[in-house]
């Protein structure tokens, strides 16, 4: 466990104070929470600040293409059973945001930190984590990010020699490739609905055979490891074979998988699955995701889906037809400016739902849905889409900046 054995140096303290001041100024100026700018100021004054702040904590890192913000929340809730937790709960997941979050938790015992995929290796080096949770890797923002397999390769190199317990998804071949260089891995059968980024063996490039839940490379024998934890329907199976019920307010299979991984993480810190899972029930919405907002006498459920794997998981959790669906897609900087990924999403899954499309790139969506043979309406904006939908629940699925636009617009 971590103890406050070594107080922060005067320089680190100054950096923390300067960071807080910068954050307060930024916040007052209406530029968001200020955590990123604060962290940048602090890191400039003391480049090793992140490592110094982490020394006083048991650090748990969480990374993935999808679900890292939610899983960070679930792990943080579970670990509060064992002691105070500091976390970058709002998803500021690059070094500056992480530094800023840790600087705010001087009396914490655990630091539960979401890390952007591209920064995982570096943050793992700086913070010497006790545990690292790796959920999934798939294509995302392709005109900016590194190739998916290269990312797995970088993780693999970065994790070689790490003393952390790695809690990793045995059902994602890219995650297994990334994690299997670590000496201490806890495999979780967390499932993976999206398979299109893992037909090619990450080790040798051979074609993966995927009978049922299993997978194996026909060429080099790289295969699914035997998991010690598993998601099984609405239950988590622990290494002793005991089944623990998952009860969440968050919807969908993917969140059950996140809960299973979080239970495995909590167990490595001595929190029993039953206690961990009970605490996870309190998580309602994460940074606005899954929130149900009443707007124009309709109940809008706000769902964030940023990439093909995320859209697929989202389709599996929405209410069945005739529940109306509003889709909103932008292609601004934070979304990636290429909309080609829409064609990797199987929109035929929405057959039977009344569909409205909005957002900067609604015409890309219109052609996509036309080719999928679906009926849809193109609307000027969210207000029109809501107005032409019948009263009751509406599922609203949006990518990153479209989601932020919606939250602001419907007052969430």
């Amino acid at each position, binding site marked *: 466990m971590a103890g406050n054995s070594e107080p922060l140096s005067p320089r680190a303290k100054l950096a923390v104070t300067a960071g807080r001041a910068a954050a307060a100024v930024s916040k007052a100026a209406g530029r968001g929470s200020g955590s990123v700018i604060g962290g940048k100021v602090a890191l400039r004054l003391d480049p090793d600040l992140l490592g110094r702040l982490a020394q006083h904590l048991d650090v748990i890192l969480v990374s993935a293409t999808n679900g890292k913000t939610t899983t960070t929340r679930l792990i943080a809730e579970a670990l509060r059973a064992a002691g105070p937790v500091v976390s970058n709960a709002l998803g500021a997941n690059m070094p500056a945001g992480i530094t800023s979050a840790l600087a705010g938790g001087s009396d914490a015992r655990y630091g539960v930190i979401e890390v952007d995929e591209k920064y995982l290796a570096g943050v793992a080096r700086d913070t010497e984590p006790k545990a690292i949770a790796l959920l999934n890797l798939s*294509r995302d923002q*392709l*005109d900016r990010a590194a*190739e*998916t*397999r*290269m990312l797995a390769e970088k993780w693999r190199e970065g994790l070689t020699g790490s003393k952390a317990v790695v809690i990793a998804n045995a059902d994602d071949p890219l995650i297994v490739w990334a994690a299997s260089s670590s000496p201490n891995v806890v495999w979780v059968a967390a499932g993976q609905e999206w398979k*299109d*980024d893992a*037909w*090619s063996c990450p080790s040798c*490039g*051979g*074609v993966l055979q995927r009978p049922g839940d299993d997978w194996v490379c*026909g060429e080099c024998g790289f295969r699914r490891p035997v998991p010690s934890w598993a998601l099984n329907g609405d239950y988590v199976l622990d290494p002793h074979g005991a089944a623990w019920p998952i009860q969440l307010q968050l919807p969908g299979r993917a969140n059950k998988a996140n809960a299973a991984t979080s239970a495995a993480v909590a167990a490595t810190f001595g929190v029993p699955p039953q206690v961990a899972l009970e605490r996870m029930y309190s998580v309602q919405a994460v940074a606005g995701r899954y929130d149900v907002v009443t707007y124009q006498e309709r109940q809008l459920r706000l769902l964030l889906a940023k990439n093909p794997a995320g859209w697929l998981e989202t389709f599996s959790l929405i209410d069945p037809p005739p529940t109306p669906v509003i889709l909103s897609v932008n292609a601004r900087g934070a979304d990636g*400016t*290429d*909309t*080609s*990924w*829409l*064609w*990797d999403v199987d929109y035929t899954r929405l057959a039977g739902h009344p569909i409205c499309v909005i957002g900067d790139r609604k*015409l*890309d969506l*219109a*052609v*996509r849905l*036309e*080719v*999928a*043979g679906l009926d849809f309406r*193109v609307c000027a904006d969210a207000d029109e889409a809501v107005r032409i939908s019948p009263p009751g629940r509406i599922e609203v699925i949006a990518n990153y900046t479209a989601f932020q636009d919606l939250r602001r617009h419907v007052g969430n």
Partner: protein
Amino acid sequence: MRSTSQNGLRLVWIYPDLLSTYGDQGNVLVVERRARQRGLEVSRLDVRSDQQIPTSGDIYLIGGGEDRPQRLAAERLIRDGGLNRAVSNGAIVFSVCAGYQILGHEFVNDLGQRQQGLGLLDVVSTRGEGARCVGDVLADIDERLGLPPLTGFENHQGVTHLGPTARPFARVRFGNGNGTGDGFEGAYSDTVFGTYMHGPVMARNPHIADHLLKLALDVNALPPVNDQWYEALRNERIAAATQPA
């Protein structure tokens, strides 16, 4: 004309396990949809890289992919030989980005080595030294093809030089295309086409899908379909290419 009418139109999507990373399977979906809208019977065959390429297809489509999968795909396509046989039987091939480079004589692979391609297009690709080409493109398609302007999204580092028997598929007005500085975008000869345009390109240019269908069916015209949303998207993207932010 090939024996299309008896068995319906045979679409072959090559190596979805390796070359389906940038949404280019949308090209298959658009060709398939527009054929069905004309009342044609269509079969679509997705061929993984551990399976044989059939030689009896009418239209073969190949997409873009990352550098290592591109190398693996080229190795397996050469070993297989089926695509070259299909083309010598008159099959149509439409390729994008990494797939386009593979159809040429050679390209530079992920190991930085020159790698042999299929030689179906008289082009040679290298890796560009400058910035990656990313963004909306507007180009005029070669006048012999009689198609309206090309709109697409490019995202590549490659540079492709045309040899004497390849014609440029289009000439860019905005964007980079082949990256050679001469304004050429893509290449074609007879029934083999290559382009750097994603989007996917058929979603923004359904006339290209129709052109391939006409070639496959050996007809000069197809019954019209409702292009309302394609046209709206085209207009929006052409405006975006000509007025970059």
